[in-house]
């Protein structure tokens, strides 16, 4: 914890939660996106529709799921549909306004790798793979990405195109016949980034409190561009922090308790 009273991770989750609107229909990736989406639901966006790829629509979990198919998601959902229906009617059908993804590797055009580090046939590290992400990235109205900054994670060239962002920039999506907007927002533990309107390169538009431009560059593998005016991200409010911490405390208790004596 810094003397600011919150951690960079907490700032990241809360900044990401603020980007979601009450009327969004959000396809939620597991991990950091899931925390952000539920903080949004528990603060300024109580009516947001959260969808997990296990088929749960309009779910309102009391604790964060460990997987995308925890029973909690089904118990608190408006309805639960089969997985083929989820991908065909709801995602491919264009019902999802925001796809919220994490990334193992990300480049400056919002292309994501969660498949392999190294060569595909002889990988240095075999990662879990894309799951729902390739089509979440192309069928959601727009895509938000959240991840912690690191030189390993934010790279000039990703090892594998798991999910297509803006390709090599410009109108690459359009050329491939993708009608949706693609990545429009990147929230890291240090900053908020938006694609340049022309080049589509992610550009820092806001620095989190106490973060310098040098720190952002030190943990990013490409030369960082900053917007003409860089704002300061408002610090987390007391309510936001309490909501996030309570959620994480409930989650920790629930997951550690499973399978153990009461």
């Amino acid at each position, binding site marked *: 914890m810094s003397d600011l009273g919150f951690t960079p991770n907490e700032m990241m989750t809360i900044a990401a939660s603020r980007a979601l609107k009450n009327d969004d229909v959000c396809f939620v990736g597991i991990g950091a996106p899931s925390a952000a989406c539920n903080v949004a639901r528990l603060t300024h966006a109580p009516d947001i529709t959260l969808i997990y790829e296990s088929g*749960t629509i309009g779910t309102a979990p009391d604790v964060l*799921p*460990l997987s995308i198919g925890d029973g909690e998601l089904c118990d608190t959902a408006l309805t639960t549909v089969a*997985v083929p229906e989820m991908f065909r009617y709801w*995602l491919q059908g264009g019902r999802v306004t925001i796809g919220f993804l994490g990334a193992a590797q990300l480049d400056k055009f919002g292309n994501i790798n969660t498949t392999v580090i190294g060569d595909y*046939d002889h990988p240095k590290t075999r990662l879990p793979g*894309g799951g729902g992400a390739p089509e979440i990235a192309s069928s959601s109205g727009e895509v938000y990405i959240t991840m912690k900054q690191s030189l390993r994670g934010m790279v000039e060239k990703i090892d594998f195109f*798991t999910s297509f962002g803006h*390709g090599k920039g410009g109108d690459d999506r359009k050329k491939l016949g993708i009608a949706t907007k693609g990545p429009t927002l990147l929230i890291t533990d240090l900053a908020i980034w938006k694609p340049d309107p022309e080049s589509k390169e992610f550009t820092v538009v806001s620095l989190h409190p106490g973060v310098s431009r040098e720190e952002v560059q030190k943990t990013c593998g490409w030369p960082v561009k900053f917007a003409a005016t860089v704002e300061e991200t408002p610090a987390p409010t007391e309510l936001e922090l309490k909501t996030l911490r309570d959620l994480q405390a409930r989650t920790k208790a629930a997951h550690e308790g*499973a399978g153990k004596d009461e």
Partner: protein
Amino acid sequence: MAKFQPLAEAVADNLKDGDTVAFEGFTHLIPHAAAHEAIRQKRKDLTLIRMTPDIVYDQMIGMGMVKRLIFSYAGNPGVGLLRRLRDSVENGWPNRIEIEEHSHAAMANAYEAGAAGLPCAVFRGYLGAGLATVNPNIKSVTCPFTGEKLAAVPAIRPDVSFIHAQKADRQGNVLIEGIVGVQKEAVLAARRAVVTVEEVVENFDDVHPNACILPHWTITAIAVVPGGAHPSYTHGYYERDNAAYLEWDRIAAGREAFEAWMKENVLESSPEAFADRVAKLRSKA
């Protein structure tokens, strides 16, 4: 026509060396007991299919039963990577499995196409995705009406699918509730289907008219195995054993620890052990 059998018989009758087999379950209702029986029976050269291979597939890969894996997300959900799968793919231990990798949308569509008796699935996907360049089974077709280029993948048609469900009635009809995943499609796409259930009830007269029920004549064999999804969960019966998923990361980290665990908990165990494993998880479900 569904035949009620002990699990060992149901697996012996329906799973052969070299088969293409799906043990489906989407976090929920993963048929662990059936897969453990397949491990005990030392089936080999299997082509395993599953959208989300997790720890029970890690176990089968580590035991050297697998020739090929068709999948769309291979991880220990919320925990990390599959260490036995990595050891196979990265180091060839105990053998180097072949991989056919898809996205969830592709696999879900491919199961649906299998159930629908179609040769392939057509959908809007893989746009700009790297998998299309490394998996020759990802192709495209042009819509004859609009000219749109769409992705095409072969239908999934397993020799046999295994699933776990809440209950069967006396006739052998099977009810699935909660997160239903892709199991109905996996059963209808397969030549043979084996279902493990928590219990058998007299009839389904009291269920909702739109409940997900597989008629008895779509199922080859049913085995009653209470707790048979553990450490996955069965909605209405017991909770997911998240601690066991966390623990697996440590067990699977080394080859010796893995083999010792498999010997104690699978090779020298039986389907009856599953009921005890979920005893502490029942009260909260």
